[in-house]
């Protein structure tokens, strides 16, 4: 049946990632990969420590989360608790347009507008931040995931029965108190699911970081410097024509497997949490 195609896809992904990744780990010990701090697979004296890529990924994800989590939650509270029905029906789709913009256009935007803007805003040396930097990529990615977080959180808040709200109002609470002390806590599992899914999207996003954050591994946590993420490494390495079966070809799959495991775990957590609030209120 057609439904099995989805299962076959997952099996395909797992096989296509883990078989070459396994071969990779026969050539490079797993501990070198996970705990090494030099990532230079193309050099004559190659280093296969994935840590610099993880730093880049985490740094940009953290920046994106700092932007998107509060703004997304704030938008959701506004849409669910404050906006009138008519306003919500215009603003929610408008916000969701943000999620539909191709990421390559976000990358273009980050590189050609946000980075020069940051250079102008940050006083001092004109070369700071570097032309490719984690901050610009992170900020734009944050805006990109606002609708993911806002939409899912708003769904969770709308699922909170209005009886709870009315009870709180009857006890003399005002809107802010109802929103922050009743609705948000009641929808917490759904909101957490939204956060987790948003962060998972940030970790897996490719084009913005390839275009705006650069392609040079970096272990420093300075957001004004160039950083390479796991996804950026995969994309740039595969795009260069490399021979099947070489160690460098297999690194794509090793890094891809790590990425898949990270996002898979987060997605499962998110799906679980969504189920929980559905079971409680429906």
């Amino acid at each position, binding site marked *: *049946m*057609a*439904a099995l*195609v*989805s*299962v076959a*896809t*997952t099996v395909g*992904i797992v096989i*296509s*990632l883990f078989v*070459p990744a396994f071969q990779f780990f026969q050539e490079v010990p797993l501990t070198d990969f996970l705990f090494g701090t030099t990532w230079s697979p193309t050099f004559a004296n190659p280093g296969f420590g994935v840590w610099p890529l993880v730093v880049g990924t985490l740094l940009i994800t953290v920046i994106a989360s700092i932007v998107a989590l509060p*703004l*997304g939650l*704030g*938008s959701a509270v*506004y849409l669910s608790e404050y906006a009138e029905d008519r306003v919500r029906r215009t*603003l929610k789709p*408008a*916000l969701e*347009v*943000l999620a*539909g*913009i*191709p*990421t*390559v*256009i*976000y*990358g*273009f*935007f980050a590189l*050609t507008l946000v980075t020069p803007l940051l250079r102008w805003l940050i006083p001092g040396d004109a070369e700071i931040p570097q032309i490719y930097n984690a901050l610009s990529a992170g900020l734009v990615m944050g*805006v990109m995931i*606002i609708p993911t977080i806002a939409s899912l959180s708003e769904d969770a808040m709308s699922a909170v029965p209005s009886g709870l709200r009315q009870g709180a109002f009857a006890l003399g609470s*005002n*809107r*802010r108190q109802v929103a922050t002390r009743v609705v948000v806590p009641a929808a917490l599992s759904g909101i957490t699911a939204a956060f987790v899914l948003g962060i998972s999207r940030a*970790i*897996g996003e*490719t*084009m913005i970081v*390839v*275009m705006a954050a650069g392609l040079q591994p970096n272990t420093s946590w300075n957001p004004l410097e160039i950083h390479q993420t796991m*996804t950026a490494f*995969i*994309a740039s390495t*595969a*795009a260069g024509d490399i021979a*099947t079966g070489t160690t460098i070809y297999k690194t*794509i*799959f090793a890094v891809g497997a790590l*990425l*898949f495991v990270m*996002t*898979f775990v987060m*997605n*499962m957590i*998110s*799906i679980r949490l969504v189920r929980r609030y559905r079971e409680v209120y429906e």
Partner: protein
Amino acid sequence: MTITAPPPPPSPATPAARPLLKATGEPLRERAFKWMLWFCMAVGLVTLVVLLVYVFIRGWGALDTRLVTNMPSSVLPATAGAQSAITGTLWLMVFTAIWAMPTGILAAIYLEEYGDPTRWYNRVIEINILNLAAVPSIVFGILGLAFISRGLGFGPTILTGSITLALLVLPIVVIASREAIRAVPQSIRAGSLALGATRWQTVYRQVLPAAIPGIATGAILALSRAIGEAAPLLMLGVSFVRFNPDGLMSTFTALPVQIYNWTTESRPEYTELAAAASVVLLVLLLAMNSVAIYIRNKTQRRW
């Protein structure tokens, strides 16, 4: 805000009355909180507007018919167009739809109409689809590279690209179709079955026609996700091509890939071209979404 007290007492007001009257206005805290929420909304919306306006202004100088009539060029930016990228994207969309739509709709029919949701394997399929919807697109690129492009030896062709993108959007098609099918009331099915129709006849003649608008909307949204994807195509090795695709086994380029290539060029003319191609991509997306909204408004039925 001052409120005139209804009965004006001649004697000086009792001290307790004043705070009571003041409390009827909206406290500063409430207003600050509301403003903060407004600000949260505004950041996203303002960025959206800035982005759209910026891309349009940046690409204005290169926005003319040569985008459609000329081929890309890496040496002559003044006459470079995006014809092969536009035709490549169109070919890609048609075949992505051909692979993803029937599979996705059949999967949705199975899960909604036939599958017993308490069976473990149906729950595995269901959770698996939800998870697949959130797998990074680049991972699908790895799958396409390893299995389809190199494993089956198809290379970076329309066939490889469209299969990869079809797998990528399949979960979206399934989830949207399931919702559309679920919205068809149970009484329609019961009525059809009571008149002696078989299960498949009920699905094919009653449920599916009723669910078509929802399915079509979901399908278009899925395609608008596929049309903007660059990362998996880059993985497959799709890059610079100066001819229109002529078949499934033809190599190709696509608009997002072309935008990426032009952005990485250092000459400013190419930045302008990247912006202009972005406008073309956004217009295509807008057209698709308008069709989706039109279908939804035109055929929306209330049960």
